[in-house]
Structures are given as C-alpha cells and as structure tokens.
C-alpha cells in the first residue's frame, strides 16, 4: 500500500478520534482541504506521522484547540467579488424592499468582513433600519473578531477599492474609525447584527429568513454535508427568499437544486421557489 493511502487511513482515525472525544465533526469536510491542513499542522507541530498526533490530540486539549483553529481558518475580505454586491443591490434589494421587516442570515461569517460589507449595502439602500442580520459561525474566536470589527489598515485599503467597484454610493471612510494603527468598523453598522454560534454540521434551521448569505463555506464540505447545509437553508428561507453562494459554488451538483431558480448565475444568487 502506498504511503498516501496509509495516511488516508490515519486521517480517518484522527477525525474519528476528534469527533468522539470533542464532538467536532470534520469527517464530512472536503477531504483535500482537511488533508492539506492536517499535513501543515503536523509539520508545524513536529509530528512525523498523522498517527503520532492522535494520542496527543486525545489527551491534550490545548493541542486540540490549536488543531481546530487550524482546521477552521477562514480567509475572507470585504466586498470580495464586488460584482456580487452590485447584483445584491440591483436584483435582491428591490424585492427585500417589499418586506416589512428584513431578516438576513449570514452563515459562516468567519471574522466578519463580509457581514459589514452587507450591512453597508443595506444601509446605503435605506433598508438597514428595518433589518436584522444573524451572523453565525462555529468558531468562537472568529465570532469574537467579527463582533469587535477591528481590522488592519491593509484590509481597509483593499476594502475601499472593492467598495467602489461594488457600486458604493458614499465614501468608505465614513464607515470606520482609525485607532492605534488599526481600524474599527463604525458601531452603527453593528446595531442590527446579532452574532451567534451555529454549526452547519450539527445545528438546525432558524427560520423565516429573506436572505441567506453563505459564501465560500460550502466548498469546505463534502457533498453530503453540502446537501445537509442546503437543506437547513431551504428550511430557513421564506418562499421567494434569496440564497447567495460563493461564485464557484453551484447548486448544480446538489440535491437542493430543484428548490431554487437562478436569479444571477454569475453572482450565484438563487431564489427559493414557492409551492409547485
């Protein structure tokens, strides 16, 4: 048996050990990413084989929490894919306007960059005051950062450029305050955001959403887990509610496809069908 097949067994055992010991289920994550992150962590922590790691992970909670952080690293940026935010403005906002109160679920918000982006769009479109945004992630450390809304000046530079491309109607500088070499997002953007822990692997729907925003989260799941997460979204959305995925994520390969019609194929914005 070749070495990478042996490693494959070792990773199965590691994920099983993590699940049974700590309840975190990475068994249904996209395998190539988990393998890559396991190898990176292994060489960083000085292990030769994945199986060397298993007893340590089982008995050493600190090592485990480092590993979980490493598994759940998420890289995001403000107004990532500016054309998507433009499409939200042009094709989603007009329909949200017809709602008395707008409920948005940002699933897998990571460190919050895209939640603030969405908040800015809704604010500029005059919808923010009657909106509630539920921003969730399973990683508490990420949620803490999201809640704080403090970012590096470099993040803000890129954000400013993207904001303009996304059709921003104001000066981006009005949305943050510089302090101690970092920037903090304006508190008013946070007023309608509720940050909460939610795990798409294990937790269930929470309901009556008009927009579910979940970009570049499903790519880290395998197909079964993608189907599960999409079922949770479908259950959470009202009829005619919108689902916005990452630009390279597609319903095409999932069981959820029949529940949605495409609003914007490039921006991956879908609309939940009514009873058919």
């Amino acid at each position: 048996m070749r070495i990478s097949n042996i490693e494959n067994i070792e990773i199965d055992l590691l994920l099983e050990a993590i699940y049974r010991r700590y309840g975190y289920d990475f068994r249904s994550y996209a395998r190539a990413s988990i393998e890559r992150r396991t190898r990176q962590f292994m060489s960083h922590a000085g292990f030769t084989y994945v199986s060397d790691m298993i007893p340590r992970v089982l008995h050493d909670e600190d090592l485990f929490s480092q590993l979980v952080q490493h598994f759940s690293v998420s890289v995001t940026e403000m107004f990532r894919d500016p054309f998507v935010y433009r499409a939200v403005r042009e094709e989603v906002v007009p329909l949200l306007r017809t709602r008395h109160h707008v409920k948005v679920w940002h699933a897998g918000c990571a460190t919050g960059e895209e939640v603030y982006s969405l908040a800015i769009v809704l604010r500029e479109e005059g919808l923010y005051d009657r909106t509630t945004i539920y921003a969730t992630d399973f990683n508490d450390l990420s949620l803490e950062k999201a809640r704080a809304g403090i970012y590096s000046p470099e993040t803000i530079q890129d954000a400013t450029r993207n904001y303009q491309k996304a059709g921003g109607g104001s000066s981006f500088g009005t949305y943050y305050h510089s302090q101690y070499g970092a920037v903090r997002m304006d508190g008013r953007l946070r007023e309608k955001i509720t940050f909460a822990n939610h795990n798409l692997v294990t937790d269930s729907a929470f309901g009556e959403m008009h927009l579910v925003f979940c970009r570049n989260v499903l790519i880290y799941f395998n197909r079964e887990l993608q189907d599960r997460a999409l079922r949770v979204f479908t259950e959470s959305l009202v009829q005619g509610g919108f689902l916005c995925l990452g630009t390279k994520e597609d319903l095409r390969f999932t069981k959820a496809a029949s529940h949605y019609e495409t609003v914007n194929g490039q921006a991956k914005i879908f609309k939940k069908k009514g009873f058919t």
Partner: protein
Amino acid sequence: MRMSFDQDTTLQSGYKAVVVGGSAGSTVVMEEILSQLGRDFPVPILVVQHLHESDDGGFAEHLDRTCQLRVIVPCDKQPVEKGCVYVAPANYHMMPERNGTIALSVDEKVNWSRPSIDVTFDSAAHAYGNGLVAVIVSGANKDGAEGMKTVKSCGGIAIVQSPDTAESQVMPQAAIEAVNPDYILKPADIAKIVTQLVAPHGQGGLSNDRTPEDPDRR
C-alpha cells in the same frame, strides 16, 4: 533525466491525470502544448496559471478556442472527466479529490499565489499517486517546486520545460533544482511525451511494469 524526445522506447504508459503549472510567459506555452493534444485525450488535465484576481475565465475561454479539448473553469465539486481541461479559477486554490471531483478553497495564498501550483500538485499527487504526470513551464516565481517534490515522492512523473526555451526561467529552474525531473523538454516535445504517457496500456509505451493489476494503481 532525458533532454530530448525521440520515440523513447523505455517510455511508460497508463498514467491517469496530467497537471500543468506556470505563470509569467506560460500562456503561449500552455497553448502550444494543449493545442497538440487530440480530442480523444484519455485522461483529465488540470491547469494552474497565476491569473489576476479579476480574470473571469478569459484565459480558459482563449484555450477553449485554440484547443480541440474542452476547456472549462470548474465549480466546486465538479466531476473530473477524461479529455477535459480544468483551469483553476482566479482567487481559488484547485484540488483534485480522491473521489474524482474537484474541490476549491479560498485558503491563504501560497507563494503569494491563489491559485497556487503547489496546492494543486500536492493534492493531485495524493489523489493520483504514481498515476500522475506533472508539468512545470515558464514562470517568474518558485511556486510548483514543492509540489513537484510531492509528485515525485508519490511516484509520479516530473516534466519541466527546458529553461532556455522559457520566457521566464525562475519557475522551471526552481523545479529542476527541487527534484531530478524525469524530462526537461521544449514545449512541442512535452505534448508528445504527455500523449504517450497517458496512452492506455499496450497502446502507448512499451512498459510492462505498470499493469492494471498493480495494487498501487488507483
């Protein structure tokens, strides 16, 4: 290491997938290689080029026009099919999975690059093992060299464009220094050898040490 292609009689065959990586100066080279491959090419090809973040598939469309093979930018979980070229989308890493689909990720840049050649080569090496043919062409940074090491250690074949034919020599040179490549060739020869390596057993090379029964074959 072989420096030329001349109906190599020791050539092996039956390889299962091809990965190609390049950056600066690689567009012409990739076009030259891919346009020589026939419509009935028997395995999938994964291409990683350092694209600008704003590329929305223009490079793939260009290749699709100039090649007989179908060239697409895959979505996440896209099944990998033979005779199809998958170009890593700008701003995503592309990883072939063991189950025959493509996974994308937005993980940190590697070698200042996303997509990174190392990331794709690494997961391809684990997914295809000794059934992988990896090609590095012109490029201006060292991305791909680490990936080549993994390809070699998993038993795959390493092919590098000869630096004197490359517009940017840094990438091929780094790959050559990182591993002892199986072949260092000019682009036209790369196409010929790749074709032979992926030919089904008994139709391409004369090798007999890679029978389908080999337990290490996937």
